[in-house]
């Protein structure tokens, strides 16, 4: 049986400056390489392939930390933990940036929305860390990852909201795609409890970008199912989500996702 294996590596080469245009960010879905190096290794499942991947891992970026997400439900939870770390780290930068701090305080306003989302993502991250540590030995739990947001201009509303939208939409599609890979109904329910909050975030951020339009659940992000119309969130496999994340250059720590379940 052929089982696609993929190895997502991302590390910052430090050559690029700020990303100033929305176009650069929007390439994320197309695996564009934005200020980072991205290697994808795809091969069939056999012992030789594993050795090759390990060898490449060993010599590829020897000055970077490497983490294997692992297999089964543990791997999926580590994967979720990686995504929540990314989101939490991003919003931590946001609330320390000029754009956020220049916003006026108002009940239900833009500043409160961003602050709430920051809270939620920190809670998701720390919860997943605690959950993982309760079920796996330290070596099997993803480390605290290194991120590099030097490509984001945190003084720019347009820049921040665009990245925020991408992260939230990606989070929704990632949890939707991971659901069927989970074996435990407990973890499936937990993923379900989180994914709808990510969708609430995505909707709110999108409405900040284009208020009062269809954009909160726009045709640009939803897909058709069975010819019934464009009315469904995407469900994206971990390898594709991680490849997209790698393409942003935000993630400095190398992730190995070979062993995640694919069905």
């Amino acid at each position: 049986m052929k089982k696609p294996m993929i190895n997502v590596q991302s590390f910052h080469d430090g050559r690029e400056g700020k990303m100033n245009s929305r176009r650069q960010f929007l390439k994320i879905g197309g695996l564009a390489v934005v200020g980072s190096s991205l290697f994808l290794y795809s091969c069939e499942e056999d012992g030789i392939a594993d050795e090759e991947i390990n060898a490449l891992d060993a010599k590829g970026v020897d000055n970077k930390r490497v983490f294997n997400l692992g297999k089964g439900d543990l791997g999926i939870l580590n994967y979720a933990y990686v995504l929540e770390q990314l989101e939490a780290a991003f919003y931590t930068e946001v609330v320390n940036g000029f754009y956020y701090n220049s916003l006026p305080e108002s009940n239900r306003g833009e500043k409160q929305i961003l602050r709430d989302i920051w809270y939620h993502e920190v809670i998701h991250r720390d919860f997943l860390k605690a959950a993982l540590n309760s079920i796996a030995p330290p070596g099997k739990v993803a480390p605290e990852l290194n991120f590099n947001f030097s490509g984001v201009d945190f003084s720019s509303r347009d820049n921040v909201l665009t990245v925020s939208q991408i992260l939230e939409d990606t989070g929704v599609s990632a949890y939707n795609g991971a659901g069927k890979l989970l074996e435990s109904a407990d973890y499936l329910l937990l993923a379900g409890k989180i994914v709808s909050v990510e969708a609430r975030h995505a909707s709110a951020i999108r409405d900040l970008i284009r208020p009062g339009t269809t954009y909160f659940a726009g045709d640009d992000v939803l897909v058709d199912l069975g010819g019934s119309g464009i009315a469904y969130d995407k469900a994206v496999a971990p390898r594709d989500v991680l490849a997209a994340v790698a393409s942003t250059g935000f993630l400095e720590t190398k992730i190995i996702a070979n062993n995640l379940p694919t069905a």
Partner: protein
Amino acid sequence: MNIIKFLDDLSDKQLFETKGSRRDSFNQMKNVGKNMALASIPFALAATSKKTSAATMSMSSAMFQASPTDILNFALTLEYLERDFYQMGMDTSGLIPAADRDVFGQILKHEVSHVDFLATALGDAAIEKPEFDFSGGPGGLSLDTFGNYQIFLALSQGFEDTGVRAYKGQAGALIDNDVLLEYALQIHSVEARHASQVRRMRGEKGWITFNDNTLPDAFSGIYAGEQNTVQGGVNLSGMFEDFGGDAAVTEAFDEPLTMEEVNAIASVFIVS
């Protein structure tokens, strides 16, 4: 099959088709109606597959295993409710302000698709569309739903937040059906996008804080249990004082509702 028979069938299943050992059957019978007491039932007793055999499940739906057909019909009922509600709203001249029609037109479009998708998937097994009364007559209410935009908005929020909780509550029962599970998840998060949008149009946060209910009192069930701070067996209460405290903890996780709880909410609007 009409909706009343469908609901009766589900109710019968909850009472009589529980799977498990005698000891647990006894516990389940003893606890019918007290969902919080079900948290400790090992899900393995209600499951037959390898996927769930090692799992314990804290969802009250573990007390019975609805069939995929039951679940799809349950979902279809809710989607019919939402679709008719938004269709009538959009068709009522002067109800929805021009500035809000794009939003509700988009939501309607999605609910139409969801109905079509589920009805097609069910084929001959699909239930008939129920007859709805959006004044809440069957529940003893007399809401001016299509004459008062604030009522319309409130019910919209209630339906969307209920929809999110309803789909979430059935995820576990679909764990062995990867295809249906993924479809359900793809609808579930769209309902959450809707809910966030409508809540914000009402001046609420897009997320649910504790079990705060800003709808008429009759709908407090829509938010019952949302104040939960225990996730995965970990009580997060008091752990995030620098990050919004328990309010943020409850916002960060949406909670499920059982079929029974959702049907109790929907039945306020179902004539037959």
